Each structure stands twice: as structure tokens, then as C-alpha cells.
């Protein structure tokens, strides 16, 4: 393998280097210098993100196990941007004294999972896919249990690892049937040998079930509630945004490339689960009073919307999913960023704590409002365009009733998103959260998110660029 071929893995390579830098910093820094690991880690990752941006040739290595092209690179970049925002947001949190002994773990684990996601997205066969998937999942359990002292956090970790073991089991079962019936694990060979026998259809459903677990599609979503609530805020935002986006990307690629002939099967499954997920996700979210749980539950419904882009099997849907993921990352991270900032300073996490926030912290309230508008899909912020294109992709393939149900559900979601806006701007409160000055890291992350929320929707080049590389069945 030549050096050029190794460089095809540039994204993963730079991430490994970033990880090693963090590790080395952790080893060599001691005493008061230990806190330096935070800027080092964020800086290293930022550089890695930038390097991964440069154009790169397409290619296949490891005999077809690993492949990369521009679309996959875009997907990885989307994930990197999201993680960078989370890293910046994490700085004030990790600087707190109670995190003193585990600052670098946060970065190490997240970069490790990101490497896994990179391999997963670039996989050319089911083995690499599975390895990537597990690399992206198992360390997350450690992250969920990050607040070691807290019982809920530990519970989150153990629930995540057990649930994911179960889902991996079913997924692997499906993969073994695929291998058993086609004699290959390579995507293109499987696709060629695919015959839609009952056993193979069973395999597809099992494979999908495993992915639904990652995407937290109803009824495979139950773990999310406890894990999202128990894990620290930033881990929750990581789980609900980055993990899901990565899973959605590879899910879509495999369905389009490996199982295009089973489209009759998987579109029926997606049809049913989209309706159930969006509806139940909204119903769950409506009664949440804890902001973290509220955002986490609303992310279940958002995942349901992503399925709308997949179901049509067309290139526009693929563009819409990537585009939506990008917007969703900005919007959700802005919302989580505000929640994290408030929780960091005051420890308050409930919706009624936000009453009258606009009077004391107008800028934070405005950011929150924009983020929620974007999540709900109100023009002219980007979230509107994200949802619009997902709906358009589904409608293009003729799923009018499904789109109608989705539209009704966005109205329901508007209700609970606006509840928070109402709390901040309308509700009276004698003792609102006092004014506080957020630190510069939070500010940078929030400003970047807000710019993203506004710009991604308005600059049509982004959509056109993704669209240029998307493919359908």
C-alpha cells in the first residue's frame, strides 16, 4: 500500500494524531499545568478538523474494506464540526474543580468514537462497518457514566452498555445471515448476490433494528430516556446529535447501496416506524419539564424526520439528510449550549427556572429562541429549510400522506418548543435567573452555532454542494 493510499484515511489519521497528542499531554502535564490539557485537546482537534476539510481524492483501500469519496468526506466534516462545537462548549465545564482528575478522558473518548464513526462511514464491507460501529458505541458508555459520583450517571452507563450489547447481538445475527446467504461481506458483492429470499429479508430487518437502536427510533428508543437524563449535558448533546447523524449516514448508504432491491421491504418498515417515532417522540417530549430530557426526547422525533429523507431512496433525500444533520447539529448544540451554560452557572435545569430569562439574560434567551425556532422549523432560520427539503424528498417519491402526518407533527413540536420561548419571554417571574456573564468559550460556541443556524439556510451553495455528490438507488 503506497503512502498516497494511506493518506486516503486522512480524516481518521489526523484524529488518531489528535488523540495521541491529548494522551501525551495527559502523561506529561502535572500539577497546576494539568488544566492545559483542555486547550491542547481543543486546539489539536480544531487543527484536525481544518486538515480534514481539504479536498481529497476518492479511493478504495484494504481490498475494498475502506472506501472514501467526497460525500463521505462531507459527512465526516459535518460530524467534526459538531464535535468541535461540543469541545468548545466543554471547556468551562471541564475546568470546574470536580472534574479535575478526568479532564482528558472526555476528549480521548469522544475522539475515539469519532474515529470509529469515520471508519463506519467509510466502510466497504460489513466487518469494517461493525468494527466502526462498536468503536463508536462502547466508549460512549464510559462517557455516559462520566459523572462517576452520581448514581444516575452510573445507571446511564450500565443501561447503555447492556442495551447496546443486545442491539449489537441482533445486528450481528442479521449480518451473519447476510454472510450465510450470499457468501460475502463486501457491500458490492452482497448487493450483486442479493435475492430477497425470506432469510435475507429477515436479515435486513435485523440489520435495521440494530441501526434503529442507534438512531433511537421507537420502539428501540427506550434506553435514550435514562441515558440522556443521567449523562452530563454535553455527553447528552453528543449522543443526541453526533451519534445519531453518523448512524443515519451509514444506514442510508447501506440501504441505498447494498439493499436497493429490497426497497419494497425497507420502505414499508420505515413508513410505519416514521409515523410511530415522530408521533410518540412528540408525545413524550410534550410533558418533559427538565430541559435536558426535553431536548433529548425532542431528538427522538427529529430522528423520525431523518427517516423521511431515507424512505424515498432518491439522491435528493440523501442531500436532505446530510443537510438536515448539519443544521440539526447547529440548532441542537445552540440549545444544549444555553442549557449547559445555565446549568454550569446556576445548576438549574427545569423549564420553569427559565421564566423571565429574557429580562435578565437577553442574549442567551435570543440564542435559545433562534435555536428552538430552528428545531421547530420556522423560516427563515435554517431548520425550516432542513425540514422543507426532507419533506420535499419524501413528497417527490409520492409519500404525501406521510408528509402530511409529519407536517402535523411539526405543529405539535412547535407547541412544546414555544413553551420554552414563552417561559423565557412571556412568563412573569419574581426571581428569574440572575444575570451572568458567560465565559468566552461558551460565547464562541454559541455565536458559531447561531451563525450556522442563519447562514446554512440562506446560502444555497451548501445545499448545491452536498447535492452534487449525493446518489440515490
Amino acid at each position, binding site marked *: 500500500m503506497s503512502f498516497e493510499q494511506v493518506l486516503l484515511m486522512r480524516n481518521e489519521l489526523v484524529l488518531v494524531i489528535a488523540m495521541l497528542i491529548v494522551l501525551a499531554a495527559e502523561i506529561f502535564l502535572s500539577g497546576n499545568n494539568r488544566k492545559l490539557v483542555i486547550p491542547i485537546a481543543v486546539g489539536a482537534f480544531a487543527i484536525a478538523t481544518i486538515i480534514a476539510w481539504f479536498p481529497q481524492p476518492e479511493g478504495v483501500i484494504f481490498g475494498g474494506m475502506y472506501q472514501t469519496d467526497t460525500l463521505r468526506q462531507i459527512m465526516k466534516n459535518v460530524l467534526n464540526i459538531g464535535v468541535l462545537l461540543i469541545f468548545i462548549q466543554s471547556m468551562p465545564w471541564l475546568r470546574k474543580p470536580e472534574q479535575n482528575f478526568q479532564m482528558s478522558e472526555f476528549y480521548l473518548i469522544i475522539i475515539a468514537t469519532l474515529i470509529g464513526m469515520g471508519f463506519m462511514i467509510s466502510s466497504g464491507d460489513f466487518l469494517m462497518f461493525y468494527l466502526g460501529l462498536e468503536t463508536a458505541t462502547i466508549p460512549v458508555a464510559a462517557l455516559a457514566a462520566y459523572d462517576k459520583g452520581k448514581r444516575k450517571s452510573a445507571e446511564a452507563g450500565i443501561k447503555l452498555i447492556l*442495551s447496546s450489547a443486545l442491539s449489537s447481538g441482533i445486528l450481528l445475527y442479521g449480518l451473519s445471515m447476510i454472510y450465510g446467504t450470499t457468501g460475502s461481506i463486501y457491500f458490492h458483492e452482497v448487493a450483486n448476490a442479493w435475492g430477497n429470499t425470506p432469510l435475507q429479508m*429477515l436479515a435486513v430487518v435485523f440489520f435495521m*433494528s440494530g441501526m434503529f437502536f442507534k438512531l433511537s427510533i421507537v420502539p428501540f428508543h*427506550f*434506553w435514550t430516556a435514562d441515558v440522556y437524563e443521567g449523562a452530563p449535558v454535553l455527553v447528552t448533546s453528543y449522543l443526541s446529535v453526533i451519534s445519531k447523524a453518523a448512524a443515519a449516514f451509514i444506514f442510508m448508504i447501506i440501504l441505498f447501496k447494498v439493499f436497493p432491491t429490497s426497497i419494497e421491504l425497507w420502505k414499508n418498515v420505515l413508513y410505519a416506524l416514521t409515523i410511530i417515532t415522530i408521533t410518540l417522540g412528540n408525545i*413524550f417530549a410534550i410533558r418533559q419539564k427538565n430541559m435536558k430530557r426535553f431536548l433529548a426526547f425532542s431528538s427522538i422525533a427529529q430522528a423520525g424526520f431523518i427517516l423521511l429523507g431515507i424512505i424515498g431512496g432518491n439522491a435528493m433525500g440523501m442531500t436532505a439528510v446530510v443537510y438536515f444533520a448539519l443544521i440539526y447539529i447547529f440548532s441542537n448544540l445552540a440549545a444544549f449550549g444555553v442549557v449547559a451554560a445555565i446549568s454550569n452557572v446556576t445548576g438549574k435545569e427545569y423549564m420553569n427556572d427559565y421564566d423571565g430569562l429574557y429580562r435578565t439574560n437577553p442574549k442567551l434567551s435570543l440564542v435559545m429562541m433562534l435555536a428552538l425556532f430552528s428545531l421547530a422549523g420556522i423560516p427563515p432560520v435554517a431548520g425550516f429549510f432542513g425540514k422543507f427539503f426532507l419533506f420535499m424528498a419524501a413528497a417527490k417519491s409520492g409519500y404525501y400522506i406521510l408528509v402530511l402526518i409529519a407536517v402535523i407533527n411539526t405543529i405539535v413540536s412547535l407547541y412544546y418548543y414555544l413553551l420554552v420561548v414563552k417561559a423565557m419571554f412571556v412568563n412573569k417571574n419574581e426571581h428569574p435567573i440572575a444575570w451572568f456573564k458567560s465565559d468566552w468559550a461558551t460565547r464562541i460556541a454559541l455565536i458559531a452555532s447561531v451563525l450556522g443556524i442563519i447562514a446554512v439556510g440562506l446560502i*444555497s451553495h451548501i445545499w448545491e454542494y452536498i447535492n452534487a455528490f449525493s446518489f440515490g438507488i
Partner: protein
Amino acid sequence: MDFSYTIWIILVPFFMFLLIGLTGHWYKKAAGLLGTAGLAFVFLASYYTAYKYFFEAGKVDGVYQQIIGYKLLWLSFTDKLTIDLGVMLDPISVMMLVVVSTVSFMVHIYSLGYMKEEAGFYRFYAFLSLFTFAMMGLVVATNIFQMYIFWELVGVSSYLLIGFYYDRPSAVSASKKAFIVTRFADLGFLIGILILSYYTQTFDFQIITSQNGPAIAGAPAQTFMGFSILTWAMLLIFMGGAGKSAMFPLHIWLPDAMEGPTPVSALIHAATMVVAGVYLVARLFPIYSFAAPDALTFIGYLGAFTSLFAAIIAMTQFDIKRVLAFSTLSQIGYMMLALGVSGYGEHNGLGYTASMFHLFTHAMFKALLFLGAGAVIHAVHSNFTYEMGGLRKYLKITHITFLVAVLAIAGIPPFAGFWSKDEILVAAWEHNKLLFWVEYLVAGITAFYMSRLYFLIFWNKTPHYHHTPHEAPLVMTGPLMFLALMAIFAGLIPFSEFVSPDLTPYHTHLHYNIAIPSVLIALLGIGVAAAFYLKETSYPDKITAALKGLYKATYNKFYIDEVYMFVTHKIIFGLISKPIAWFDRQVIDGTMNLFGIGTLWASRKTKGLQSGQLQQYAFAFVAGAVILVLSFVYIWA
């Protein structure tokens, strides 16, 4: 020649708006200089563009070209129906660049002095930049949808600036009135755009206005209530223009808009935004001319009526800004009328040329009048003519420049207004004698009320002033002098060499048989005004007493506002809104509440599903997979 730099003419004010709006509170006073510097760039770039366009790159084989300087595909609905954002340069858009940048730049400089004491100084400059951005985007629009977007942005910035003194209830209600009335008109505009684009499958100006394009050569044959569908579309589009340009009966917002700071009145409500309607009709002129001549005739009559109506009201007002506001209405009526009597091609297009010419000269002398009025108000702290008089002794520069503007608007040669008004009268004479006589009368009335205003301010009796009025500083008188030069010399531009409906230059010459009578009637108006108001006399009171009822109706602007109040409050609110509100509250809300209650109920019922027990989660997981397999692999396979 590459005109792609023209995008910066739009973007620079936009960035200035963001910069000043977001950070202006740090450096308050410097915000004005910053905004003015931005506008200086726009000003220079616009003049440079005008020079390049008219004298070097614009004309090919004797015909001016429509040059797309910059184009960005923003949203595509179908292959043909796309929304672009871009810059189109043609004679009228380049002329508008000059008008907007000149007046805006002068207003920026002037406001450095006029608004100096205001608390919201930086906010004012941020909004001015926003307005300039919006107006520039409007005039260079490559397609009707871009125009609509910026049209609304202009409306928003006008709203923000009229309501600049948001602690005054009158300013707040004036800003709301302006926004609601123009927005209501824009509803027609939007529907018109949708009809037009539905039948032509394009938004692009170049395509819809081209001779063999879908609107003119392939005009749809459908008719509705006796008029062709295009006539309806063009009338609806004109409704938007009538709202912005304050044509009767949508004019009611403009006099109230004078609640805004005076420089804003000069910029937005005299020179630029209010002529957007005229510009819109001019932009779509080939469609009006060929496919919807009925609509064009209507525009002509409406313009004539508005100009007469407003001129009569202007004679009786005492608030100097309101006199100017009504005179603006009247002059815009002139421009509309000129478009209405215009044909297409060669000398037939004289009305079109005259309309644009008058737009140009009017912008200069009306901005001058408003800024002069601002200087007067600045000196005596009152808007009312009965608290003024004899100011020629105190405000020397203001006096001279104001006089120049009055002579210009009255149509006295060689000032600018004479030349453009003469062309309008010639065009009207050639196409419609009735409209000509209306305008001839209005010319006399205009000369009368403008001289009346001038004499009341600068001559007449001198009241007792608390402080001796003093001349404004140079930052304010400088723009006055510049605009005065424009008001003197702008009329000498041979406009038909540059602007014509078919983009082909032609020659015009002075028609003495029309010019001389029109100068005579203007002199008559001035003479009557001088007799009444040069010194304090009893004539005005006598005439007022003699025409009591008529005078009162005129003074109260013919009770149009009251008619609106009656229609909106009694008829719309009482007879239509109330029953609808009942239906909305009981039936619609009831249904929605039912959904809401149902959703919450479902939410409560499903609460138990999330038990926290991992075994149950695993069960649901496996059961889910099994059900999926059963249903989709075995049952419905």
C-alpha cells in the same frame, strides 16, 4: 466591462448595518462617521458605475443593454422558475443608483448635525444603512421576486425609521399605519406576482419584459370579468406600487409618516422609497404597454387624480412637513400620469422618459426642501408656519437653497423641475387632453402652495422668537448647497439620450407652445401667493371664511382618514371580524384544544411505558424486531 463589483454597492450598506447595529453602542458618535464613510463608498461607486454605463460600456449599436453585473441562483423551484439574487444594470436602475446614493449620502452627512443630540444616534445610522441596502437591492433587482423581497425590506426600514422616536405615541401609531397600509397593498403585489409568474413561468425581468417573451408575445388568452388575466396581474402588481408610492386611496400613511426624523422624510418619504411604485411600473413598462394597456390608462388617471387631490390639500396645511408630504404625493401623481400617457418606441416613449426625468429632478429638489425644512425646524423648534416668519434674515443659506427648490418645483426655468415637468405636459398633451388640463391646473396650484410655504417661513410677519434663530452648521448646510446645485442644473441633462422605454436614445426639444403657458401659470401661482403672504394680509382669512365648508373639508384632508376608520372599525371589525372571531374561538380553537387535550392524554397514558427497567426495554426491543419481521416479511411481503 465587468460590473461584478456592483454587488458591493448593495453589500457595503448591509455590512454597515450589521456593524453599527451590533457594535454601535460602544462608540456611539463614531457610528455616524462610520455609516457616512460606507455611504461615501456607495456614492462614489454609483457615480462611477453611471459614468461607465452611460458613456462607455452600456451602449451597443446605439441601444442600451441590460447588463447582469452579478447573479446568484438562490432557490430553484423548477428548471425555469428560479429565484435569483443579482444586479441588473440598465438605464433606469443606474439612474436610481445615482438618485438613491446621492440623497442617502447627503442625508447621512446632514444627520451628523441634525441628529447629533439624539440618544439613538447609532441606531439611526444603522437603520439608514439598512434602508440604503434595501433600496439598492430593490432598484438593481434582476427579477420580480428579488424586488419583492427588498420591497418588503424597504417597508421594514421605513417602519423602523418612522417609529424612531418610539417613546412618542404619535410616531408609533404613524409607523404602524405606514407598515399596515403598505403591507396591505403588498398583498395585491404578491398575488399579482404569483399570477404573472404562473402564466409566464418566470420571475426574470429580462424574460418577462422582452418583446417576444411569454408575457407579451405569448400573452395568455384567459380573461376574468372582462379584462385579460395579465391586466389583472398588472393591476394587482400596481396595487403594491400604489401603496408604496401613496396613490389615492392608499396615500393616508404618507402625511403621518412625517412623524419620523426630518432627514428620514427627505430620504425615504420624498426622494427614494415613495417613488418605488413609479419605478416598479417603469420596470415592467413593456408589459403594461403591450399586454395591459387598460391597466396603464388606469394608472394615468389615478396619478392625475392623486396629484390634483393632494395639491388641493397642500394649500391649506400649516405643518411644513405635511405641506411637503402632500406636495410629494402630488408630484408622484405627476410621474404616474406620465407613465400612463406614454407609448413605446421613439418619441412615443416621451411620457416614460419624462416620468423618470421628473423622478430624478424631484428627488433632488424635494430632498432639498425637506432638509431645508429640517434646518428651519432645527432653528425655531416648531413645525408650524404660524410660529415662523421673517427667517430670511437669520437663515441665509437655508433661505437661498429653499428658494431654489421652490422655484424648481414650481417649474420656473432654468431650474430642474421646469424641464421635467415640461416633458410630462408635452406627453400628456399629445396623448390625453383631459389629463393635460388637470396637470396644467396642478402646476399652478403647486406654484401657489409652495410659494405660500416659502413666504410664510421666510417673509410675512416675524413672530417673537424665544431664542434668536441661528443658521445650521456646515454639515447641514453643505448638503443643502450640493442639492441646490443639483436642483439648478439637473434639468439640463438630456434625459431622452439616456432613458427610454425601448432603451434606444432619441432627441427631445423644448415645446414653446406648452412651456410658455406653463411658466405663466406658475408665475400666476407665485404672484397670488406673494399677494397673500409676502406681508401679513387679510386675504387668506377672507377666502377661508368665504369657502368655509370646502376649506374645512380640505384642511381635514377630505376626511379620508375618517372614512378608513369607519370602514375598518365599524364595517370590518364589527360586521366581519367579530363573527369570524367567534367562529375562531369556539369552533377552530375548540377543535385545536380537543387535539391538544387528546395529545396530552396520550402523553399521560404512555407515561408507564418508560419504566426505567432494562428488562422491559430489552423486551420492547426484541418484540419490536419480531413484530417488524412478522408484519413486513411474512404477512405483507
